[in-house]
Each structure stands twice: as structure tokens, then as C-alpha cells.
């Protein structure tokens, strides 16, 4: 474990940026944090969470896959994706780091998604422990420790110091790069901070939310539950929850004709949309109830069924804060899961 002065953080950022792109949460004028490329003058945000999750780095909202040009009977293909440089994402919260595992299961299992894989290969994740969790946090439900060690490097933030620990080879490389600003310290140096975090975490209102009633074998139990009607009835069908969600991974592939050539790109899509996975015969889920149920069943039942019981929610709480009508996975879990035992 190494430590650095909090005051030297900008020098550290500057150092990292010399050799690779560095991204970190920065507040915009309205006080909302979003990941931004660091440059001189950008300040690391104090905010717990960014509005958009860091999944954007590996699975961007819009990503050009290739270009092609049709002239006469010839089609000329051009690969536009150029992902060959390392980059650092700093300040990722433990829940968000876990979300990459969720995405990895999907994109890195066969058939492997080359674009995603390349980004994962080049991305270095520096996680930062959550010193100030919010009332909307429920990562504990999914076994995540807000003070735990995640990513390639973990950072604990103290009053005046940062404590650094490399978890992977990629992480070691970064630590080496900034070694001039850090000094070695006791491996227990961050324990105070961890304890403090745990103490706060115990007070979180959603601390006792349990996912044990959910899992891969529960399809029959939940699919036809009458509560879906009242839960989904005020859903606007917007995509806010899916777009701020770190684990939602649905996308659409579309062509854009520039007039000179055609760009084939993919972009996030949302299972909440009535046009989602529209096919010539229509869409598979006809009502908002079905679409709403799909999202939560996927997070709590289908995904665990596919990936060894792992849930595809990490409890970051973004959807709790941004849903226009305040309907969210916590309300769904409490409404359905609470009655499962009866």
C-alpha cells in the first residue's frame, strides 16, 4: 500500500495524462458529475456517483463499428474502430467496478465482442472507496463492499491523504508511473477509513434489502405475479433507468447514410421502449407491463440463470434518483420479494 497527499492529486493526474488518457468524474456547472477527460484545471468531483455510469468507456452509447461504400456492384469496407491505446478511468466506485463483471459475462463470452474486449484490454480502472454513501445505495444487497478492493488500483480517500493499492499488473504499472508522488505505507493504513465507511453503511436505509428471494430458478414464481400491473402502470416508458444503469447492456445496430458512405454503428437501446427489438412481425413485448417486467426479471432472474446466480444489478442507486416517477428495482424487490415467503 502506498499513500499520497491529497494536495498532490492534480500532479498525479497530470503525470498519468502525460502517457495516457485519463478520465475522472468532474462536476458540470449545475453540480452534476460526469466522466470527463482530465486536463489542466479540471477538478475531481466530490460526488458519490456520476449521472452516466462508466460503462460508457467499454460499451459507449454510440460506437461506430465500420464504414462501407457502395459504388456500382462493389462494396468497400472500412474498419473505423481504433482502440489501441491504454487509458485510465479514475474514481470508479466499487458498485460500478462490479458492473464491468456483469458486462464481461455478456460481451466476453462467445461470441466475443471484439470492440468491447479491446476497450477492456486497454482500460485501467482505479476504484475509489465510497466515503459518503447515499440513502439510495444498496450495493450490500449484491455483496459489494463500498470500502473493498476493486479494479486495477483501489484508492481510499482520507482527510488529507489518499491510500493506493494495486490489485493487478495493469495497476502496478500505474502505481509505478506515479511513484514520485506516493510513498510506501503500512498495509493497514486505510483500515480506519474502511471502518468509518462500514459504520455509515450500517445506517443506510436499504441496508437490509435482500435479494435472496430472487435468482435463476424463480421465473415461474414471479412471471405472472399480479403486482406487475400496479408496479408498471405509471411507467412512462422512457429509457432513463436503462441509460443511467451501469449494467444494462442492450443495444441496437443501425446504419447512417452520410451520402458519401454508410456508417454502421451501434447505440444503446432500452427494453422499456415500445420499438425495442422491433421486427417485421412486430415486437415481442407488446405492453409496457411486459417491457417493465422484462427489465426487472432480467436483472433478478434471467441473468442469474445464465451466469451462475450473479445478479445484474449492483445497487448503485442511479435509477432511484433519476426515474421521473420514482419507480425502481427496490420497490419491485420489496413488493414481489417480500411476499414470496407467504
Amino acid at each position, binding site marked *: 500500500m502506498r499513500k499520497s497527499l491529497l494536495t498532490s492529486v492534480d500532479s498525479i493526474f497530470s503525470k498519468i495524462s502525460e502517457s495516457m488518457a485519463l478520465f475522472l468524474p468532474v462536476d458540470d456547472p449545475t453540480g452534476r458529475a460526469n466522466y470527463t477527460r482530465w486536463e489542466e484545471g479540471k477538478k475531481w468531483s466530490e460526488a458519490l456517483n456520476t449521472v452516466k455510469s462508466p460503462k460508457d468507456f467499454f460499451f459507449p452509447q454510440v460506437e461506430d463499428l465500420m464504414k462501407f461504400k457502395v459504388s456500382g456492384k462493389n462494396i468497400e469496407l472500412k474498419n473505423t474502430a481504433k482502440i489501441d491505446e491504454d487509458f485510465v478511468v479514475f474514481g470508479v466506485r466499487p458498485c460500478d467496478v462490479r458492473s464491468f463483471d456483469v458486462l464481461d459475462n455478456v460481451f466476453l463470452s462467445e461470441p466475443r465482442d471484439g470492440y468491447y474486449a479491446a476497450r477492456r484490454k486497454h482500460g485501467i480502472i482505479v476504484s475509489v472507496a465510497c466515503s459518503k454513501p447515499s440513502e439510495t445505495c444498496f450495493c450490500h444487497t449484491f455483496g459489494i463492499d463500498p470500502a473493498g478492493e476493486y479494479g486495477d488500483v483501489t484508492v481510499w480517500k482520507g482527510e488529507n491523504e489518499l491510500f493506493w493499492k494495486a490489485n493487478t499488473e495493469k495497476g502496478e504499472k500505474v502505481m509505478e508511473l506515479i511513484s514520485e508522488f506516493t510513498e510506501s505505507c503500512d498495509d493497514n493504513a486505510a483500515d480506519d477509513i474502511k471502518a468509518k465507511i462500514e459504520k455509515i453503511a450500517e445506517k443506510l436505509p436499504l441496508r437490509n434489502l435482500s435479494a435472496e428471494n430472487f435468482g435463476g430458478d424463480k421465473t415461474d414464481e414471479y412471471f405472472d405475479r399480479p403486482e406487475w400491473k400496479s408496479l408498471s402502470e405509471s411507467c412512462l416508458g422512457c429509457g*432513463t433507468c436503462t441509460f443511467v444503469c451501469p449494467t444494462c447492456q442492450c443495444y441496437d445496430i443501425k446504419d447512417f447514410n452520410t451520402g458519401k458512405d454508410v456508417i454502421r454503428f451501434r447505440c444503446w437501446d432500452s427494453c422499456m421502449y415500445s420499438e425495442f427489438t422491433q421486427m417485421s412481425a412486430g415486437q415481442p413485448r407488446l405492453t409496457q407491463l411486459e417491457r417493465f417486467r422484462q427489465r426487472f426479471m432480467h436483472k433478478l432472474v434471467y441473468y442469474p440463470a445464465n451466469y451462475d446466480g450473479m445478479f445484474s444489478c449492483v445497487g448503485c442507486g442511479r435509477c432511484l434518483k433519476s426515474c421521473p416517477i420514482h419507480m425502481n428495482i427496490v420497490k419491485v424487490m420489496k413488493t414481489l420479494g417480500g411476499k414470496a415467503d407467504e
Partner: protein
Amino acid sequence: MQRITREMLTSKAISLLNDGTVSAVLGWREGEFSYDLTPSLFYTAEDIEQNFVFNDFCGANFSKYLVTKTLGIEGKILAFLKPCDTYSFNQLLTEHRIDRSKVYVVGISCDGMADISKIRAITGDGISSISCEPDGLKVQTIYDDEPKTVSYEDAMAERCICCKSKKHVCYDELIGEEGEENPDCNRFGKVAELEAMTPDERFAFWRGELSRCIRCNACRDVCPACTCEKCVFNNPNSGAENKAPATSFEEQMFHIIRAFHVAGRCTDCGECSRVCPQHIPLHLLNRKFIKDINTFYGEYQAGKEVGSRAPLVDYTTGDLEPGQVFEREGM
């Protein structure tokens, strides 16, 4: 604090349910925390007694729900509408989107709703509960032992601070006092401020705002004027379909066209800005159109009268020329 109390609404709702006037009640259902209420339909008195909530976080505009919720139901729906909601409701009646006979409107007076993000900015994160007390909102966080008090004034949503009207333009019954229109609300102040900037400044301002857009469509899907059966942005044949803000152009395109489509129909309810996860001040686009319409073609408030002709489907032979738009501003 709202002068209307939960009990006033629940007793009204239960009596109307019991005497058969309505078969369902559109109201607010309790959430996890004090501020995260969900609009919901209540069918029984028990449900209302247990779960119906009314407090300073009941900002959602119910009028749009009535478009779809009145379809699959026998009898009437009781809708509690705040003054601003009644304008949207009227506008939807004008556009034949709601069957008036299916709705029992109870107008409720409103003292302005609170904005949780303004409260959070004052108290910090970790809000475990909020209670509405006469002297202010008592906010308890997990980081403090004692609750912090936030005044209603400090907590009030921007759209409520410059509320255009406390008057209900439509109701079957009224609870609370009827208010007045407020022509001095200065709701165009920020628009005028932007107009006074140089084009470069304006461009920089909007670039900064719109670049945050994540195209989640919350603004559109909450908007009571956006009730199209099929939105042009979802329609692959419209020539305007776009699912993601692929470039800065598409960010601009979406918001310009959306504002244009609701121009003359937007009642300025402010829901678009309320729901934006990135807090883009989308209402400033709509207000620009409203302000222009008022100055170019005479005062017009969408939703004020059912059946009124929206300015964009109307004209006079003496209208000003597009080229005069800038002359008259002396720019």
C-alpha cells in the same frame, strides 16, 4: 408547505369512490423515502387509506396519464389536478386526446412543490426522511444526528418560483382556494438573459447544456404535449429517427424539433426540466417559443381555453415577416 392536506384528498377520494362517481383515483403512492412518490391508480378505500400520500413532492403532472388510463376503465377516473396540470389537461381536451366524460377533475390549490435536488444541495446526500413542518422541511440524513431545516422557499422548484398561474382552468370540484393568474411571474427572465447574450455566448451555453443529453427520452415521455401515437424520433420512416445523440447535430436536432412540435401547445408545465437526469433546462427552449409567440402574435396561453386555435395553425395577413424577427429586437 401545502395548505391542502392528505386527509382532505383521501376523504374526498373515498367518498367519490364509495358513491360510485368514480371507479379509480389517480394519486400519489408512498415510496421508500419521503420524496420518491409514484403516481398511481387507487381502486379501493383501503388502499387509499394505507398508501395515498400528499406532500410537497407531488410535482408530477397527471394530465398525460389520463390519455391512456381512461381507455381501459369502466367509469370515471378521479384526478387531482394542480393549477398548472389543468392547463395541460385542457390542451389535451382541445386535441381530442382525452374523453372529458371519463374524468372527474378535482382541482387542488398548490403552494409550490419542492425540488429534492435543491434540498440535497443544502443538506448533502444521505437523506433518510423528510417531514413537512410549518416552519420548513425537516430533513434527516444518515450523516447527522439532528434533522436539518430547509425553508420552503429554498426548497421550491424553479418552475414553481415563477408559477404562471394559481388558477384552475378546468375542474368539476375544487379543494382549497382558487388562485389568480400571475402575469408578473417573470418566467421569461432567463430567456431574455440568453437573448441578450452574443450568439457565441448563446451557442456555448447551449452546447454545454445539450452535450450532456443522454437521449433517455424522459423529457418527451413525460411531456403532456408529446402524446403522439408514434413519435417521429422513433419512426424509421420519418427521416428524423434517432435513437442516440451520435453527434452534436443530433442533440440539437432532437431538442429543436421537439420544441417546435410542441410550440403553441406547450403549457409551460416544466415537467421536461424536472425529469431530465442531466438537469438540462429544457423549459428554456419551450419558453423561447412561448415568448416569441406572445410578442409576435399576441398573448397566447395554451390550455387556457378548450378549443382555442394554437398560433401555429393560425395566421393573420399582417403577421410579421421572418426577417423582421431580428429587426424588432433591435439587434
